[in-house]
């Protein structure tokens, strides 16, 4: 069972309650490592819930999928840190820090 379509059929069978315990265990191991199959399973589940609600079963609900994944959070943290470093560098280049002591001392200019 190496084909992706085979796993999608297994997902349907699992949602129908037709898999044995060993098959469900194998499918669970695969879903843990395959993002596409776990997404497909969530889509199938939501489709079934929608069909059930349209058929008059208001109690049918599906657990919402997480909107933000860990990888996305890490990406945004990285973007934030890099943006902060860049802003600090630009700010220092534009306005500077306190400067050296000699730069703050008075100076005569003969005109």
């Amino acid at each position: 069972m190496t084909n992706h379509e085979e796993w999608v059929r297994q997902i349907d069978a699992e949602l129908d309650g037709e898999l044995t315990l060993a098959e469900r265990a194998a499918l669970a191991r695969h879903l843990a490592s395959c993002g596409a199959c776990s997404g497909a399973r969530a889509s199938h589940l939501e489709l079934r819930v929608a069909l059930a609600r349209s058929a008059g079963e208001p109690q049918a609900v599906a657990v919402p999928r997480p909107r933000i994944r860990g990888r996305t959070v890490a990406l945004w943290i990285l973007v934030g840190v890099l943006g902060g470093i860049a802003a600090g560098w630009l700010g220092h280049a534009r306005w500077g820090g306190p400067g050296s002591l000699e730069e703050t001392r008075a100076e005569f200019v003969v005109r």
Partner: protein
Amino acid sequence: MRSSWFASVAAAPLIFASTIAAQAPGARIAYTVRLLERTAGDARLAAVGTIRGPQDTDLRLTLGSDTSEVDVLLEVFPEPDTVNLTASFYTRRVAGRSRRGLPLWEVDSYHRETRAAWGATVRLYPYGPRHDALWLEISVRRDSVGGETRPDEAVDVRDSTIRLGLDAVMRPRRALVRLTLVRGDTVSAPQMLDLVPDAPGRRVTFVLGRHDSRAVDVSLARPDPPLTGRDSALAPDADVVCLRVIDAAQGSARVRCGRLNNVARRLPLAGGDTLLATFAWPAAR
């Protein structure tokens, strides 16, 4: 040996000329200070002041804001065609806040000097040339106005957010002291004395009514030297003199210090008498 002899001969006229210039009786030095600030590209006059005084008059300049204070003592070393300006700076800047919210000040002191022609305008950037939004224009010229011994000061500050102070710093060589003795309801005739600081004292006799009189020995002295190097350099008490009074009969000494500003000062003497002393700049010679 020959070069040393030649250098001495060459330097003698220069030294003689500068000495003559410094001691010229009618010469008077004038500092004109203009404080300008740049707003929206235009230079705006924030304050202007003029200090005049005898040739050895120095200028004490104080510039302050909420975050910084600059105190400068500007000294002039005249030459026949140019003037050397030497400035001693004492600055304080707010460097941050302590953990309890109190301001932390950064203190700095240094010297600057420059050379310019008489009457030329010298720009001074008090916060460094990078901070060119505020600067001072100083010109020094020599007037031939005779005899005046006291300096005079005039400052016109047009921007109230800026603190600018200009003071003439000159140690008096003489002082006019007006003395009056008061005993109860009786007041003696005033005695006008032209005293030289640190010179030997003089005996003064006050006549009170028809039969009473009192003699005291008076002398003038400089105040004690300042305790800090900053006060020593900026000389805030340059025009302060101290009157030392010794009762001729009892030998007890009393001292009263004051500025040459025509303000009467009381000096209680032994026996309940009071000596009123007023210090002033001597008249023009």
